[in-house]
C-alpha cells in the first residue's frame, strides 16, 4: 500500500541508514541487508525506531478505510450503549405496545414489538451494553494471561513447558462451550460471572498459539544472534520474539473479542445469560419459537450482533496490517 512506502524513506533516510529499519520488513526489497543480522538486532532496540514505527503504524491504520469504518461503527455502538438509558429510560423488558407489530408498521416502534409488546429497538439498544462489556473485559483478561503463559512455555521449554502445557491442555481438552455452560450454571448467571467464565475458557487458545509461535521463532537466526549478544531471557522474550509472534496473536485477539460476544449471545440464547438484563442473544432466544411467523424478532438482534462483531473484526484487520511490517511489502 502506498502509505507504507511513503513512510519508509523517512526512516531509512534519517540519521541511521541501512541497519535502522526492521530487517524482516525490508528483506524482500533490499536483500543485501538480510544477511546482516547482528547489527539489526542491536539497532532495532533504539527508541527512535520504536516511535517511528508506532507513528507509521498509526498512519497505516488511519489510511485503511475498512479499519476506519469499523472504528466508526464501534464508536457508534459504544455511544449507543452509553446513551441507551437516556434514549430509552424505561426498562426494555416492560410491555409498551401492541404485540407483533412488524418493523415500520407503527412509527412509535420503528423496529416493531415482540410477542409481549416489548419495543424491539429499545431492547437492541440496551442489549449493546452487555455485549460490549462482556466482550471487551473477557478478552482483556484472557489475552493477558494467555500471552504470559504461552510465552513462558514456548521460550523456556523443558519442564516449565511440560507443566504449563499440561495446564493448558486440561483447560483446552474440556470442550470450551460445555465448560462455559457448566461454569455459568455453577455460579449463578450475571454479567460478571459470564465475563469471568468466558475469560477462563478463552486464555488457553492464546497460550497455545503464543507457545507455538515462540517454539518456531526461537529457532530462527535472529534469536540466536540476540542470545550470542548476551541478552537476558526477558529481553529476548519481550523485545525479540514477542514482536515477531504478535501478528497471529493480534489476529486471534480480534477473533477473541468476536468469540466472546458470540459466546455471550449463545449463552443468553440458551437461557443462561443474566436474567435481569436484556441481551441480543436472549432476544433471539425468545424470538426463536416464533421464527416461522415473526422472523424479524430473530433477524434484527442477530444483525446487531453481526455488525458489531464485524466492526471489531475490521478493526482487528486494520491493526494487523498496521502492526505487521512483514506484510507491508505486499501491499
Amino acid at each position, binding site marked *: 500500500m502506498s502509505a507504507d512506502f511513503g513512510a519508509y524513506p523517512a526512516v531509512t533516510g534519517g540519521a541511521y541508514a541501512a541497519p535502522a529499519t526492521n530487517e524482516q520488513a525490508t528483506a524482500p526489497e533490499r536483500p543485501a541487508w538480510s544477511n546482516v543480522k547482528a547489527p539489526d538486532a542491536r539497532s532495532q532496540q533504539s527508541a527512535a525506531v520504536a516511535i517511528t514505527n508506532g507513528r507509521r503504524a498509526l498512519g497505516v491504520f488511519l489510511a485503511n478505510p475498512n479499519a476506519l469504518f469499523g472504528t466508526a461503527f464501534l464508536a457508534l455502538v459504544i455511544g449507543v450503549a452509553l446513551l441507551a438509558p437516556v434514549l430509552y429510560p424505561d426498562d426494555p423488558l416492560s410491555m409498551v405496545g401492541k404485540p407483533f407489530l412488524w418493523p415500520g408498521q407503527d412509527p412509535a416502534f420503528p423496529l416493531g414489538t415482540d410477542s409481549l409488546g416489548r419495543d424491539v429497538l429499545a431492547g437492541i439498544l440496551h442489549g449493546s451494553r452487555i455485549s460490549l462489556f462482556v466482550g471487551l473485559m473477557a478478552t482483556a483478561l484472557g489475552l493477558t494471561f494467555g500471552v504470559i503463559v504461552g510465552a513462558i512455555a514456548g521460550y523456556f521449554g523443558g519442564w516449565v513447558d511440560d507443566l504449563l*502445557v499440561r495446564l493448558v491442555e486440561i483447560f483446552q481438552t474440556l470442550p470450551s462451550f460445555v465448560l462455559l455452560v457448566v461454569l455459568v450454571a455453577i455460579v449463578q448467571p450475571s454479567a460478571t460471572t459470564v465475563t469471568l467464565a468466558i475469560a477462563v475458557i478463552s486464555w488457553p487458545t492464546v497460550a497455545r498459539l503464543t507457545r507455538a509461535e515462540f517454539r518456531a521463532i526461537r529457532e530462527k537466526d535472529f534469536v540466536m544472534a540476540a542470545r550470542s549478544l548476551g541478552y537476558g531471557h526477558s529481553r529476548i522474550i519481550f523485545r525479540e520474539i514477542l514482536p515477531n509472534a504478535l501478528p497471529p496473536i493480534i489476529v486471534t485477539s480480534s477473533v477473541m473479542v468476536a468469540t466472546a460476544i458470540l459466546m455471550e449471545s449463545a449463552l443468553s440464547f440458551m437461557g443462561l445469560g443474566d436474567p435481569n438484563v436484556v441481551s441480543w442473544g436472549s432476544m433471539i432466544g425468545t424470538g426463536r419459537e416464533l421464527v416461522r411467523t415473526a422472523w424479524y424478532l*430473530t433477524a434484527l438482534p442477530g444483525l446487531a450482533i453481526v455488525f458489531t462483531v464485524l466492526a471489531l473484526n475490521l478493526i482487528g484487520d486494520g491493526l494487523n496490517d498496521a502492526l505487521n511490517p512483514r506484510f507491508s511489502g505486499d501491499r
Partner: protein
Amino acid sequence: MPALVRIGRTLRRTLLQAVPTILGIVILNFFLLQLAPGDAADVLAGEAGSATEESVAALRARFGLDSPVLEQLATYLGNLAQFSLGFSPRYGMPVADLIAQRLPGTLTLMAVALLIAILLGVVLGSLMATFAGRIPDRLLSVFSLLFYSIPSFWIGLMLIVLFSVKLGWLPSGGAGTIGSQLKGLPLLLDKARYMVLPATSLALFYVAIYARLTRAAMLEVKNQDFVRTAYAKGLTPFGVTARHILRNALIPITTMAGMHIGGMLGGAVVVETVYSWPGLGRLAFEAVMGRDFTVLLGILLLSSLLVIIANAAVDLVHAWLDPRIGAR
C-alpha cells in the same frame, strides 16, 4: 534426523503427557461439578413433585450421592478403571450406552463441518494470498469477515427461515425421516438432506478462521528466503505456492484444526439445540440442566480423549512438516 525417528519421539512424548492430563481432567471435572448446587436426586424429586425428605434421602443412598466426596470420586475412578462410565439415574441406563447412542450423530456432524470448513478455508485463503491486495482478495476478505461475525445459532435459524419455511427445500430439524424404510444410497441422501443445514451452520464460522489463517500464514511465508530460492530455481508459481508456501503455512492451520475439535463440540451444543439434532452436544446440555453428573463426566472425559487424540495427531503432523520441531 530421519522423519520416522522424529515422529516416534514426538509420539512417545505426547503419549506420556496424555496420562496425567486425563487424570487431571477427571479429578478437576469431578470437583467442579461437586461445587454445583443441587444434585440428580433434587432434580428427580422436583420432577416427581411429591417427594418427601425420606424419599429424597433414599434416592441419594441408592445412587451413592450421600457418601463422602472422596468416596464418590474413588468409586468413579474405580469404575473408570473397568471402562465403566457409571449409571445415569436420570435416563435409567448406563452412561456408556447413552453416550454410544449419541456419539455417532455428533461425530458425523463435526466431521462433515470440519471437512467443509478446512477445504473451503484453505482454498479461499490460498486465493486471497495469491491475489493479496487486489480485488479478489478484498471481496473474499469481506466475505470471510462476514462469515465469522455471524453467530452459528442465528445463521441456523435464518437458514431454517429461508430453506425450510420459505422455500421448503430442506427439513428444519432432526437427523432423518422418521419411520422411513430407505436403504443404501437413498438412505444416505436422506441423511445428507438433514445434514446440510446443521453442518453448514457449524462450519461457516470456521471457514472464515481457516481462510484468514491460511492467508496470513501464506503471506508471512511468502517473503522468506527459501521462497525466493524456490523461484530462483525456476519452479512454477503454482509449485512454489503448493509445495513451499502452503506446506509451511499449514503449521498454524493444523494447530487450529486440532484445537477446534473441542470448540466444535461446543458449537455442536448450540447447533444441535437449534436443529434438534440427536447428538452428544444436546445430551451434554440436558445433563447440565438435569444436574446429571455421571453423564456430564462421561461426556467430558470422552471429549477430552477426542481432543488428546487430535492434539497428538497435530504434533505428529508438525514433526513431519517442520524438521526443526521435535528434533530436541
